[in-house]
């Protein structure tokens, strides 16, 4: 055997994949990647993003090809995963946790052609957009329900860390409850962990023993809802509809629906109109939705919640609207005024009626 045919075979072997890729590229679907901070599970923050991904895939069919990586820690691992996704040819990448902010920006810089969408962050670039939801709107409505259902007027709140997103939720719940019961108070306990079912359970038990008869949580497990079901105490879920953990006692839940946003943004990449934007959607945009109310909630209350939902959706009513005093009794929101988005995003004070320390 001479050298010549062998070399041409080699050249042919090298050329074929290149040709194939070029031919395939014309009709190739847009590859879209999702990076999740936790396992998908069956409820919770990451699960809601996964529902959005499924909706996107179902709606756009073979025009897109979605994939995900779950349980990505917010440390050094995140950059590796995001970089790998970009290198694999994903044209649009959703990174769905606050801690992915810096890795996303870094990888986006190295892959200027890919588009990135970072959830709950504040750093943007020409190819990095940000998006989040006005969770506090749902919290206000949940507070309204709590105010009606609580006999003791004490709402127990199991929270992870005192960051603005959590503080907004606590204040909004209180303002909602005080709309119907001006004497309502909230007791807050901190677990210093987003996910520790045992600690969340102990915190819930504690709040019940101190007279709270409605519980809610800003942590990632359904342990608080379970504690309520076991002891016959009302609860308000968060992230996902948690009624299966508390069929008798879970009153409603603030849930996040990312479906429409994901479909819209993928469509924009497909028709070339995608731009780096900052989206903060609420009930009006369908990003926040209340889980169906428990049968135990009286019809009159359900109607009131419905009216408030529509008022918030249309923008006629703002949950953070003065007069609101802070814990020290000083004016936090002057009468007749609302808060700007910037003020809400940096909220670091508790309203009067919240017992707890930031």
């Amino acid at each position, binding site marked *: 055997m001479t050298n010549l045919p062998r070399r041409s075979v080699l050249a042919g072997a090298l050329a074929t994949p290149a040709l194939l890729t070029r031919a395939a590229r014309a009709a190739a679907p847009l590859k879209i990647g999702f990076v999740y901070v936790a396992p998908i599970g*069956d409820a919770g923050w990451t699960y809601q993003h996964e529902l959005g991904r499924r909706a996107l895939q179902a709606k756009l069919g073979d025009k897109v090809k979605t994939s995900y990586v779950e349980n990505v820690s917010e440390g050094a691992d995140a950059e590796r995963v995001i970089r790998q996704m970009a290198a694999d040819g994903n044209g649009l990448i959703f990174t769905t946790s606050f801690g992915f902010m810096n890795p996303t920006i870094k990888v986006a810089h190295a892959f200027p052609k890919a588009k990135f969408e970072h959830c709950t962050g504040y750093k943007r670039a020409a190819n990095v957009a940000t998006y989040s939801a006005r969770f506090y709107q749902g919290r206000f409505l949940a507070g309204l329900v709590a105010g009606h259902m609580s006999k003791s007027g004490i709402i127990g709140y199991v929270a992870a860390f005192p960051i603005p997103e959590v503080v907004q939720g606590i204040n909004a719940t209180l303002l909602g409850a005080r709309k119907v019961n001006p004497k309502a108070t909230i007791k807050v306990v901190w677990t210093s962990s987003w996910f520790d079912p*045992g600690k969340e359970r102990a915190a819930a038990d504690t709040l019940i023993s101190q007279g709270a008869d409605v519980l809610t949580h800003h942590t990632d497990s359904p342990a608080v809802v379970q504690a309520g079901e076991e002891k016959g105490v009302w609860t308000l879920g968060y992230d996902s509809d948690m009624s299966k953990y508390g069929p008798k006692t879970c009153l409603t839940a603030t849930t996040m629906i990312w479906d429409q946003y994901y479909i819209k943004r993928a469509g924009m990449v497909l028709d070339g109109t995608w731009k780096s934007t900052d989206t903060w959607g609420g009930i009006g945009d369908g990003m926040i939705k209340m889980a169906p109310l428990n049968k135990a909630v009286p019809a009159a209350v359900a109607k009131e919640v419905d009216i408030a939902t529509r008022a918030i959706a249309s923008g006629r009513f703002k949950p953070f609207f003065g007069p609101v005093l802070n814990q020290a009794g000083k004016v936090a929101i002057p009468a007749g005024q609302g808060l700007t988005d910037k003020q809400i995003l940096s909220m670091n004070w508790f309203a009067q009626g919240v017992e707890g320390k930031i």
Partner: protein
Amino acid sequence: MAEAVLILSIVVATLRAATPLLLAGLGELVAERSGVLNLGVEGMMLMGAAAGFAVRALSGSAALGLLAAILAGIAMAALFALLTLRLLANQVATGLALTIFGIGLSALTGLPWAGVPAPGLAATIWPGLAHAPPALQQVLLLDPLVWIAFAGVFAVDWFLRRSRAGLALRAVGESAEVAHALGTSVLRIRLAAVLFGGAMAGLAGADLSLAYTPMWAENMTAGRGWIALALVVFATWKPWRLAAGALLFGFVTIAQFQAEAFGLSLSPDLLSTLPYLATIVVLVLISRDATRLRLAAPAALGKPFRPTD
């Protein structure tokens, strides 16, 4: 009356928070007293939690779930025993590997059960729990596992101090060579101790996934296996001190939440470090005096033993 219920609820909450630590700690204590250091407690607990919940969900029987958890813990411990006792692998490295393995394997096997709701053990035994009067409800919340854990303290203490087998076990832990020369079967005793440790860790995992927070979620033990390990040292390898340590740890956790809910301005970060601080202080105190440390720790702890003839 309200105060009495509050105090009762603090007591019950403390007991319940201490139970998984005590169960896992008792098992590890016995293993260490036989001279085997098994750092795989967290991994064995997770396997127990996953297997227990899966079988509970499949069969609908809490008792079968508990049994499955014990067997899963024993299976993990058997793997550890094979590697360290028979193949003489390094105990520290093997134990760490067992934890990492357990985290991964439990996540895999538990996957279909993530997000499946199940009633807690107490609510299974007492269906009317949610509507019971507050004081009675608190008492009913003390499920069988709480009683098993605290009865276990008596049993293990009696076994180690009063029984012949316990004496042999301690001898093996102090000096395997001497025990061997006296005709004691070192490896058989260590195997039994390691398997007991696995069974108790599995039960501790089931306490979390079937009783305390009845669900399966990846990594749901959240470091309790490591705390149990630290408590064994804190207790200087004595069952009664282990119970005290577990109760202290449980109480500080509960007290932190109670203080916050009362509106006391204590730093939650400082409070949540207290149990760990206490462990470090005890470690410093017992290791300050070399003799006392030598007397407290099983002398052959972590040393492999190869029977010569």
